[in-house]
């Protein structure tokens, strides 16, 4: 495989609702930020790929008008996935593997605030036997959380500890939407939101955008002192029906982590895309992370969860920690679909 690295990452601050800007206006600072960090323009980019979905803001072909934000003129090599930006990054990584191009720009964005997000997401479910019941995302996650409690592996205290630790970590993240320092016991004292989940167990609703620049080999080395090399990347999917899965484990994450080579070396840091606190526990187990791994130092999705983007941000957060030398090897995870249906795992590493 060709050596491909993340050389730049920018995100907009996670916000509950970006009411002043349309999508392209919200997105442009992320694109300009990522290009500016490495003194590049779109003319220096070989391939562009984005991730978004029309359902969040309710506008069809949303990606068509946001493409204006990169200035695709003269015409560019470009693609779009109706997926989280982490999968756009995967497509870009594949494209660079072909050896013709050396750089790629990946961006994703979402405005979740215009609609009723937990209800909008019910449109992902089986359109005949499930979606007409309008089971919101929080309720489905709560079913998974109850199953995890019933398994005897974790307790509500464990959930609360994840919730509290994430928000405390987020105090160091200027882009976080939710950040506070309170003990887990405070979380446990909250009333149930959808039992057994409390509000603090759930990610906030977030508008936001992010952009990552990839470069191959020497191009990456020429642009930054310490590129974050992608050593492995893989993604897997499971059936959507919750009844067909063991909700207390994440088999697709396990396979992806194995294929991405997580176990091939020590992991310093992991950014896990867990929109609900109990999901972090399931994912840690599936990826095979030890107690010593620094998990979600950014605060994770519980501190800011722009749909279609939170997965890409996980990759960027790990890359930043490798590039600034605070970590040498890290794991980033992205998820999609109800109760962790589809998962991507990537392993990043600094140059040894």
């Amino acid at each position, binding site marked *: 495989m060709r050596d491909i690295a993340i050389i730049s990452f920018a995100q907009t601050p996670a916000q509950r609702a*970006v*009411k*002043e*800007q*349309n*999508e*392209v*206006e919200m997105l*442009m600072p992320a*694109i*300009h930020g990522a290009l500016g960090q490495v003194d590049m*323009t*779109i*003319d220096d980019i070989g391939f562009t790929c984005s991730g978004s979905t029309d*359902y969040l*803001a*309710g*506008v069809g072909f949303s990606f068509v*008008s946001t*493409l*204006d*934000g*990169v*200035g*695709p*003129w*003269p*015409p560019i090599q470009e693609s779009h996935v109706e997926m989280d930006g982490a999968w756009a990054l995967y497509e870009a990584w594949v494209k660079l593997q072909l050896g013709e191009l050396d750089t790629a720009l990946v961006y994703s964005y979402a*405005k979740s*605030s*215009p*609609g*009723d997000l937990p*209800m*909008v997401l019910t*449109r992902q479910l089986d*359109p*005949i036997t499930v*979606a*007409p019941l309008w089971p919101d995302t929080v309720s489905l996650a709560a079913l998974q959380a109850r199953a995890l409690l019933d398994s005897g592996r974790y307790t509500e205290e464990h959930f609360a500890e994840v919730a509290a630790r994430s928000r405390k970590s987020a105090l160091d993240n200027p882009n976080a939407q939710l950040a506070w320092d309170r003990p887990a016991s405070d979380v446990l004292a909250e009333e149930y939101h959808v039992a057994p989940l409390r509000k603090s167990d759930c990610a906030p609703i977030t508008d936001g955008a992010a952009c990552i620049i990839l470069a191959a080999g020497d191009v990456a080395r020429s642009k930054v002192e310490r590129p974050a090399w992608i050593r492995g990347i893989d993604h897997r999917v499971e059936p959507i029906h919750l009844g067909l899965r063991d909700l207390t484990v994440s088999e697709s994450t396990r396979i992806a982590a194995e294929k991405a080579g997580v176990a091939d070396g020590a992991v310093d840091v992991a950014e896990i895309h867990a929109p609900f606190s109990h999901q972090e526990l399931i994912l840690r187990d599936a990826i095979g992370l030890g107690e010593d791994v620094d998990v979600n130092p950014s605060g994770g999705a519980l501190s800011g969860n722009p749909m279609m983007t939170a997965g890409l941000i996980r990759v960027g957060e790990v890359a930043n920690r490798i590039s600034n030398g605070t970590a040498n090897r890290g794991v980033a995870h992205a998820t999609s679909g109800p109760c962790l249906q589809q998962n991507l795992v990537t392993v990043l590493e600094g140059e040894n």
Partner: protein
Amino acid sequence: MPPEISLPASLQDVEQVRSVRTPARLDYEFTAGEASSRFLKGITQKKIIGQRATPESRVYVPPRGADPELGATTPIEVEVAQVGTVTSFCMVNVAFYGSVMELPYTSALILLDGADLSIMHLIQEIPADEVRIGMRVEAVWRDDADIEPTLESIKWFRPNGEPDDPNVRIPGEDHGTGLGSWVGGVAPTEALIRNPRTGEGGQA
């Protein structure tokens, strides 16, 4: 072909369901954004105010938030004329969802004087089969009381009496004819196009 299904006894002699209605409604709050809101505010004052990214770059009407050549915001406002030239058009004979127009009607691409991209709008006050490329037209506004922040506040465009513009062209059409082809032995390259960021290229 779908495979043969074996049904439990209880369902073998009843009429099978073949289709199902699953109506769905989602409610959103749509945000126009900064550029559009500024533009539409001008419309409420019966002004057509385009935007551009730099003093040299193209003037966009209506602005959508980004100059798509530069990938940049368009903070500079430029009021453009309320007269322009028809660059192309189409006579519509088919009703569609959301349509309020009586059939047939003519929708046209109109390049307003001072703008660099045509807007699509209606042509009225002339028989539909007399609309021409190159025709000069002017905006007809709704009554003041009915002006709202939408391009529909311009009811339509109508001929303004000026002679046709014989040199009308679609913005950008010189690129097409400048492309050349393999038949002529010249493959097109990016170099034929001026790069708006660097100013390079663009020889025909």
